[in-house]
């Protein structure tokens, strides 16, 4: 069961990622990225991370991708054109990427004692605790300060997004109002 689910959703994941590269229109790339993120949520479930699977769907496939698609439609982004720069990037980039992948894959395949992933195995040996209980216990006790600091980070991000996207005294502030992020 685990193997079948892994193969199906890993394949979906890879297909979505490759499709992201092949599509020339940004909206198609965004939709394939949603496929990748949703398949990753299923893989998180297989690895026993229920909370992260839910957060992946809500935050990534929901919020972040809606933001992306919103910007694609707002800016009316068309299909990209192939230029001299893209041909250079292709001829230099592909060998470099393959080299990086080869190094990482060698390290992973040479590592001993990685073991197998067991379906339904919890984080700790106490089986009566759910994943969310485990995560929240550590998050709100040991890591409370970093958790609170992230709220400041979000606040700064909101302020920055509004400040950057707002039509203030730019050089050409005569267009129609397009709103914040």
């Amino acid at each position, binding site marked *: 069961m685990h*193997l079948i689910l*892994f193969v199906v959703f890993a394949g979906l*994941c*890879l297909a979505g*990622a490759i499709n*992201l*590269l092949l599509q020339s229109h940004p909206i198609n*790339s965004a939709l394939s*990225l949603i496929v990748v993120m949703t398949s990753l949520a299923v*893989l*998180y479930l297989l*690895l*026993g*991370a229920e*909370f992260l699977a839910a*957060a992946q769907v809500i*935050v*990534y496939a929901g*919020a*972040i991708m809606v*933001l*992306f698609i919103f*910007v*694609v439609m707002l*800016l009316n*982004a068309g299909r*990209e*054109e192939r*230029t001299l720069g893209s041909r250079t990037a*292709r001829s*230099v*980039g592909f060998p470099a*990427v393959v080299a990086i992948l080869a190094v990482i894959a060698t390290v*992973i*395949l040479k590592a001993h004692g*990685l*073991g*197998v*992933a*067991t379906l339904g195995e919890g*984080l*700790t040996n106490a089986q009566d605790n759910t994943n969310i209980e485990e*995560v929240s216990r*550590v*998050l709100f006790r040991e*890591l409370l300060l970093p958790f609170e600091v*992230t709220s400041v*980070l*979000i606040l*700064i*991000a909101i302020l*920055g*997004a509004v400040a*950057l*996207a707002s039509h203030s005294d*730019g050089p*050409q502030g005569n*267009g129609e109002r*397009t709103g914040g*992020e």
Partner: protein
Amino acid sequence: MSSLLTQEVPISWYLLLSAVLFSLGVAGFLIKRNLITVFMSIELMLNAVNLSFVTFAHQWHAVKGQIFVFFVMVVAAAEAAVGLAIIIAVFRARATLAVDRIDLMKL
């Protein structure tokens, strides 16, 4: 068929999937000529690293691996908001999304 149903998946397969996704993200970052798609490739790389974190958290029964993924998600959300606002500002100033034409800081 029953052996297929009870078959376990090696940890290294998850890590290899993560590595391949990361490499595809790097390739997209280098190849794509649209600013928004380049940004999507960065999100793909973040997701690939998250999969590694969750895999190692599963292997070592460590809760903090999953919490780190949670923080990465928070930072990715903040980064997406600010980055897309920057993209809107760039588009407003230069009326293009092609990375080749956004070369004001190029020497």
